[in-house]
């Protein structure tokens, strides 16, 4: 464990950008976990007297058309957005990498079927497919998670298939067979951990993309319903007020979105360095 901690400190020291990214990530996690207690106001509490108030000391992010405090809503929305994205990514990572590894390792029919499935999903413009899935299955948050998981599946399947295929004939795989390991054991305990570094980058980028996806779906009215606090919905509600100059309703949730996605994009390289044995000195 101390070895991992040393390596962690080394990776952080290498690149200041990684520190910033992990710091931001820590902040996001804190907000997601403790949001409801950190928010100054009740995110659902309306106040007819103070609608559309610009940012002030009282309401640093202003209030929206129903008098709700925008800052509180932005903080609380972290949990929902992060939760949706994380669930979707974990789901598609688990399923996609299992399928991809099997396809890359054994080839043959497994490869063909997984390839077909992957190609068929990728034949759709992915956001559009998500729209279609949610419209078909029903307009709930769970279905947003499933839809996002489905459209992300091909990425994991493809990366894991390629990386497994490259390593399938490596000397150490043959050596493991000579040492008495069965194929499944080799795949699970040796090949899979070795393909984790490139998968980490993919996961991190996917997180950012999943957040944008979920927000986009909410923006057009799918998934999350008012009065729930979610960044995409907040931007949608704020959109109508932009043209009349009330910018704070849309800016703050949009900025929160941007920062979260930005953080995940930056984290990709840092995560890979943490997991990659070649980086250890």
């Amino acid at each position, binding site marked *: 464990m101390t070895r991992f901690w040393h390596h962690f400190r080394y990776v952080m020291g290498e690149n200041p950008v990684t520190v910033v990214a992990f710091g931001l990530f820590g902040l996001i996690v804190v907000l997601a976990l403790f949001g409801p207690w950190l928010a100054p106001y009740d995110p659902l509490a309306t106040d007819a007297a103070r609608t559309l108030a610009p940012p002030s000391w009282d309401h640093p992010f202003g209030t929206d058309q129903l008098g709700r405090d925008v800052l509180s809503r932005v903080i609380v929305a972290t949990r929902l957005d992060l939760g949706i994205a994380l669930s979707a990514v974990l789901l598609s990572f688990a399923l996609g990498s299992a399928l991809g590894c099997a396809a890359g390792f054994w080839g043959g029919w497994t490869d063909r079927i997984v390839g077909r499935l992957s190609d068929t999903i990728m034949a759709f413009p992915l956001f559009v497919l998500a729209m279609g899935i949610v419209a078909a299955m029903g307009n709930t948050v769970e279905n947003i998670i499933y839809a996002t998981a489905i459209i992300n599946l091909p990425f994991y399947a493809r990366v894991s298939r390629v990386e497994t295929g490259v390593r399938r004939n490596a000397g150490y795989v043959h050596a493991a067979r000579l040492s008495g390991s069965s194929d499944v054991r080799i795949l699970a305990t040796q090949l899979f951990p070795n393909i984790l570094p490139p998968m980490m980058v993919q996961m991190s980028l996917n997180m950012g993309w999943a957040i944008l996806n979920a927000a986009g779906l909410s923006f*057009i009215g799918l998934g999350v319903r008012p009065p729930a606090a979610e960044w995409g919905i907040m931007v949608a509600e704020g959109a109508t007020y932009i043209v009349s100059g009330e910018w704070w309703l849309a800016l703050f949730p949009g900025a929160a979105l941007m920062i979260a996605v930005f953080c995940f994009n930056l984290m990709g390289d840092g995560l890979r360095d943490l997991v990659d044995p070649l980086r250890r000195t």
Partner: protein
Amino acid sequence: MRTKLLQIGGRLLQSLPSIVGIVVISFVLTRALPGDPAVYFAGAMADAESIAQVRKSLGLDRSWVEQFFIYAGNLARGDMGMSLGTGRPVLEELLTRLPASLELTIAGLGLAILIAVPLGILAATRQGSWIDHLCRILVTAGVSLPTFFTGLFLIYAFYYLLGWAASPLGRLDIFYLPPDHVTGFYLIDSLLAGDGEIFWASLRQLVLPAITLGLFALAPIARMTRSAMLGALASDYVRTARANGLSRSTVLVTYALRNAALPVLTTLGMVFSFLLGANVLVEKVFSWPGIGSFAIEALVASDYAAVQGFVLAMALLFVLVNLAIDILLTLVDPRVGLAD
């Protein structure tokens, strides 16, 4: 030449399974509705008789396989069902609105390519310079920006604050009449009709949404161009070219750029996929009357036939674009067909 034709033929054949896959998934989506599909397709205000009629026309009383063939058969005849909102066939609605979306998407993509490709090339050839840093910042920021957010804030900055841009209310200000329909592209049609005023009016409306879409496409194209160029410039064959004294422009264009173009072309396909999705969002923000807005209205009105028709149409469009890119790649890269 014969091998090239065979390879192109092969590519065409290879897209068939994709089309079949798309039709299958579309079919599954129309049947995945919780409850009785006939009720959904007949609409909220249908009476028992129309529901029964819809059920019969969809073949819901038959087996799955038969249903699928009915569905596929209908599609082949261009029958995607009726739109509840407008009362007209879905296909007709989609075709009417397609030019608007295409004009927007092509404008956005064109803008993005015009900026991103030179930017990526310059960043790769001048590593460490300000252009390289600018490129990297743009790319990292660009992939993080939500499209609808950029659209909104472009409106806020350039319309509300600065007053430079036109009001974000569609393709043409209400004062003007659209030009005579030839292609459906206002820019082209107005030029064909010789009407300069309408041309500029259309252009003014197009600017902000095209920039929004372009910004979205800019980042992945610039990133791939830069990385492909870096890879090509670091390759063994560029080293050989330099070792034999070839001029800078020959090395850059004939040796590096042509090889880098291949992965960039492949990326364009992926970017187009994302663009078709972003299109929907941009059309909502700018009230652009394309198929994206149509789909959003259909979603709100629970017009299922329209939504599924939209998904199918977009997928088919995407397959066509990918096919075009694939054929282009086959023509340009002599190694294509080896890995199969």
